[in-house]
């Protein structure tokens, strides 16, 4: 059970949490600007933007995307650049958090110091875990996808096993995703003290075995927040000025909560580390 000390320690990271939140807000604002420019150019003076903002409409969506492919390509390139920037930024931001928590620092200054110090090794970790993750995914799915390549359906008596195996693989993928995510966190955390790449992986695996339930639980909570935010955007069909502000506050509130939950999880694991 989570004790008050862990919660208090997590709250003490408030400066860093606010900083990361502001970075996310900035990112959101950049995307907002891109989207705004795109809609402005794509819809022009059309009344159909009204239909679009009220919720999903396949006709409008199709007419929009099909007739603005050049625009989409242009903004797609911009977004891709943003993805690359966010890739590095994300490593940096979490390096600051982990460094601060393991070293029991709380200031924003130490946050940056830790982030700078840990960025390169953590980049190595991320690349390693990305490779592991993609390899696992390929090994998991490749034999299955061959069923759909060629004409292997003709060898099956029924499609029922294909569907059930597919569902099972999805579940395994979900569990593996959380495991790799947990391992990625725990190895990075142990690295702060051990400074050894191999040792940290070894320790990370040991810690993962001990904390697997917590990791799965935190993973599910974070996933549920994503699903909630997605559902919220679907439910809210008629954005007026009032619910526009409300929507902004709720979504960004959950962004903040998401960051806090991740800090809290680092704090929980740190408590078990050494």
């Amino acid at each position, binding site marked *: 059970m989570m004790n008050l000390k862990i919660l208090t320690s997590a709250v003490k990271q408030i400066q860093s949490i606010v900083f990361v939140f502001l970075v996310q807000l900035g990112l959101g604002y950049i995307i907002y600007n891109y989207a705004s420019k795109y809609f*402005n150019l794509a819809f022009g003076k059309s*009344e159909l933007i009204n239909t679009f*903002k009220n919720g999903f409409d396949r006709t409008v969506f199709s007419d929009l995307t099909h007739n603005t492919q050049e625009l989409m390509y242009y903004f797609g390139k911009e977004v891709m650049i943003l993805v690359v920037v966010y890739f590095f930024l994300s490593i940096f931001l979490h390096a600051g958090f982990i460094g601060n928590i393991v070293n029991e620092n709380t200031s924003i200054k130490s946050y940056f110091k830790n982030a700078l110090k840990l960025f390169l090794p953590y980049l190595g970790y991320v690349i390693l875990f990305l490779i592991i993750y993609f390899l696992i995914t390929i090994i998991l799915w490749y034999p299955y996808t061959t069923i759909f390549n060629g004409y*292997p*359906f003709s060898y099956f008596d029924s499609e*029922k096993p294909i569907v059930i195996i597919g569902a099972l693989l999805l579940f395994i993928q979900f569990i593996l995703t959380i495991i790799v995510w947990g391992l990625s966190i725990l190895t990075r955390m142990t690295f702060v003290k051990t400074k050894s790449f191999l040792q940290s992986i070894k320790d990370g695996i040991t810690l993962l075995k001990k904390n697997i339930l917590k990791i799965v639980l935190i993973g599910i909570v974070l996933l549920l927040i994503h699903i909630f935010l997605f559902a919220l955007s679907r439910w809210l069909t008629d*954005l007026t000025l009032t619910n*526009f502000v409300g929507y902004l506050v709720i979504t960004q509130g959950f962004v903040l909560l998401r960051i806090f939950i991740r800090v809290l999880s680092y704090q929980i694991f740190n408590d078990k580390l050494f």
Partner: protein
Amino acid sequence: MKKYNLPLIILFSFFMANLHGQCENYTKDQSIKVTNYEMDVYYNDIDKKANCQQKLVWNNFSKDTINELRFYMYMNAFSHRNTTFLKDEDSKIFGQDLETRKKEEWGYIYISNAVDETGTSLSNNMYYDQPDDGNELDSTVLVIPLKKPLLPGESANIEIDFTVKLPRTIVRAGYGKNGYALFVHWFPQPGVYEIDDQGHGSWNCHQFFRSTEFYADFGDYEVSINLPKNYIIGATGCKINEKITSDRQKVTYHAHDVIDFGFVVYPHFDKYTYTHNQTEIEILMPSEHCAFAERYLDAIEKALDFMGDYLGKYPYPKITVIDPPVHTLNSGFMEYPMMITGASFYGIPKSIRTVESLVTHEFLHMYFMGVLASNEKEEPWLDEGFVTYFEDKIMDHYYGEKHSIINLLGYHSGSAENTRIEYTTMDDPSVDAIATPGYEIQGPYKPIIYSKTATMLKTLENIVGEKVMQNTLREFFEEYKFKHPKEKDFRKICDKVLRESDLDLAITIDGFLQDALHTKKTIDFWVEEIEYRNNIAVVRCHKGSNFKVPVTIRVAFASGLIKNYEWNNNLEMFEIIVGVKDPIESIIIDPKFQIQLDLNFINNSYIINQDATKEKAASMKVATFTQSLFEFLTFLF
């Protein structure tokens, strides 16, 4: 939506079907029967061959003396890689590699003997012809010269012994695993002897092409099928007799007023029968698909009800729905008189109604192809296009206009809107005119023949109104049922019905149909930026082509005044000139989106002072979604 207790339905329906024998009481003389058949089939399920005897009566209703009969021998389309059906296909079709196909997996039809009523052999002089492409390797059209010319009003009585070897299913006909076999286009079938407008007669008997299948005369069929006892059979028509011996069964079917006959055999079918408004619905499906039985029933019932009200009563006593097992899924998605093949896949949720839309589509072919037996090879739009139009109507009517096909996790789409999008998102929507013969289509077949036609018909309906459209289609159906209608017949009915209500509209619609059917023109309405000069404002509306289509332009002014301008000519541009005292607030071409053929609805309107909050709201949603997506995708970091 109605809910059914499936086990009860099955019990009840077995009982009902056996008690009443719906096939007993129905009209058997609805058509002029040019060709009548009696066939005996002995099926060997080991080597996938059927030895058959056919007694054929072909009636010469023309004023010509006939010297030869021409037959479809379509099973030969699957006899090798270079048939007209297969030669232009990629080496892989439905995932099967045709290049490495085993010899025993090919199929054929072979006539060993044909004699006339005097016992004179006709098989010595028969030969294959390739009237469409001259491909000498194609054996899908057989010519049998008659020993004695057939005078007007006479009948040819011919007995044919033939063998059908089924291919391992490439598409539609053939065999699959565990005994599954679909017999379609499996017997020698005469083409249609047509009389043109000048009174000249000739055979219309095309080779088998990939996309088009049907054009045959109406007739009666009596078909006896002898096969191993453990098989379940589904067929065109009604079962009238059944004899079972120790290891075999012989089942006889009757079908009246139909243009073709097909049957399926499989030992592992579950059979569901049900009666709805005196029509017997028989569903054959593998047991893992049992959850779809209710959905099939529901869809067929809805289609029966809708078409009965809208167009005319389903004229046959029975419909058989075949749901193929997964190993022969490529035999699905098709229609044969009184028998259709659907396609389902274990686990498709009810919120994805592809199963319903497919079975509805195939059932509608009983009207367009089955009863209005147009020439699918030469005028496929009269068949697939009308079917798609009605499929959209039925799906959207019963399941919701923008939700009828998919309604899942906030994503939704309707049948008619999907159809329009399939046309508007083509790489080149102007690649083919609608009224192009099936074998001459250059672009993708389905978006043109199915979707463009259905979208054109929807546009027509929006212009003339639902009631006039219904009257037109009903009259077309009544006038041409059990005949071979052509484009001119449809247009003649359109013109007649429209002239009764609005002469000008009739003329406009004639121009619209001419452009829609015979030109490659497309429509894209858009509004040019308003030009202000002196004390006037000039609005220019564009159409993208000179397509003749009536459309309304709605102009709203600052004072609240709204003016509608009717743009009925075929000019590419329409100019509106107004004073500037009452400034324009908005211009909308086609405010009710009646012209569904319009390639892009986004640019139809021009709002002078666009409300920026709408754009902001849309951008906001995108931003928060992307923000969350980024965070999600970078979970490892």
